[in-house]
């Protein structure tokens, strides 16, 4: 048999060969990407909502768990500024003020739950504020049944971005 005839037979065989289906390589990806992005937003929103719910209902327990971390912050950054901000603590002559000192010392800064998501500030600032006691209930720092609606004095630990990272309740605001 001639070469051309043999090649013709081989050609016929090859023409019957079916290429593997690779259509999946060319599937549009826009919808998938968009869906993924939407899904990400949805999950992020859900996570934030869950965080807020946890902060309101489980605040006290969460606050207790965060104490060691806050204590470390206090030791490194806050303590010196607090002393400066409250000169009465350094005045030995006034016995009445000295008597209040242990009460202030017992209170400690409590981290605000969702602040973990923010970058850690390089510089902190302590600001003294007057807070409605009802708001402390929302932060898990007061039990609702004990809240009387009075104003209490507190110190707020601010980051350089102006966002509060922690709060320390000082007591009833007498000013």
């Amino acid at each position: 048999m001639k070469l051309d005839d043999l090649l013709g037979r081989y050609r016929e065989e090859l023409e019957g060969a079916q290429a593997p289906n690779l259509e999946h390589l060319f599937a549009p990806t826009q919808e998938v990407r968009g869906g993924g992005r939407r899904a990400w937003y949805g999950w992020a929103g859900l996570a934030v909502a869950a965080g807020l719910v946890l902060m309101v209902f489980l605040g006290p327990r969460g606050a207790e768990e965060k104490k060691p971390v806050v204590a470390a912050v206090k030791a490194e950054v806050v303590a010196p500024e607090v002393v400066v901000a409250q000169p009465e603590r350094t005045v030995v002559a006034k016995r009445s003020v000295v008597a209040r000192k242990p009460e202030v010392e017992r209170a400690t800064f409590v981290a605000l739950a969702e602040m973990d998501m923010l970058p850690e500030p390089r510089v902190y600032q302590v600001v003294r504020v007057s807070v409605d006691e009802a708001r402390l209930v929302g932060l898990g720092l007061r039990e609702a049944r004990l809240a009387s609606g009075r104003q209490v004095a507190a110190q707020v630990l601010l980051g350089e971005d102006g966002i509060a990272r922690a709060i320390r309740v000082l007591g009833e605001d007498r000013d």
Partner: protein
Amino acid sequence: MEVVELVERVSGVGENDLAARIRRGERSALREVYDRTQQRLYRFALAMAGNADEAGDALQETFVQLVRRPEQFDPARGSIEAFLYGVLRNRLRQQRRQRRDFVQEFDWEECEETGDETLLEGMLRSAQVELVREAVLSLPTHYREVVVLIELEETSYDEAAEALGIPVGTIRSRLSRARGLLEKKLQEGGAKR
């Protein structure tokens, strides 16, 4: 014919748009190229590699490269089909280096009666085809590429020259030499059987 249509489109204004869309990686354009070229590229790969697995792998890697790096296609240097042939040939060469046992033994168990052929005719036909297949596979790559494109795919000399990136004169001389080698191989193979 697919190649003719493709070449016509490459030379047209519309094809310039297609080339731009390919380079931008638009899935619809890539899919259009795939639909037009996949069968021809697969037959080329099958004839060059000698087995369906290797041909399928090389074809997939070729289109994956097109999808991932569409900007590598430069319409100024040739058609999209020539580009794909180039990628496919490189893949086949890489595979061949990795798998030295690329020529498989013919499986007589797979011989089946087809159509109006008797079993004996079918076996003879398969044996002849196998003889040619082995002879083609035994050719050096640069001869085998020309035989597959010109003799098996029936592409024109110009198209084959573009796909392989060599002058038409080289195509002619390689084909002439390859046919001589094939005849010699077939005579040797026929005598052995």
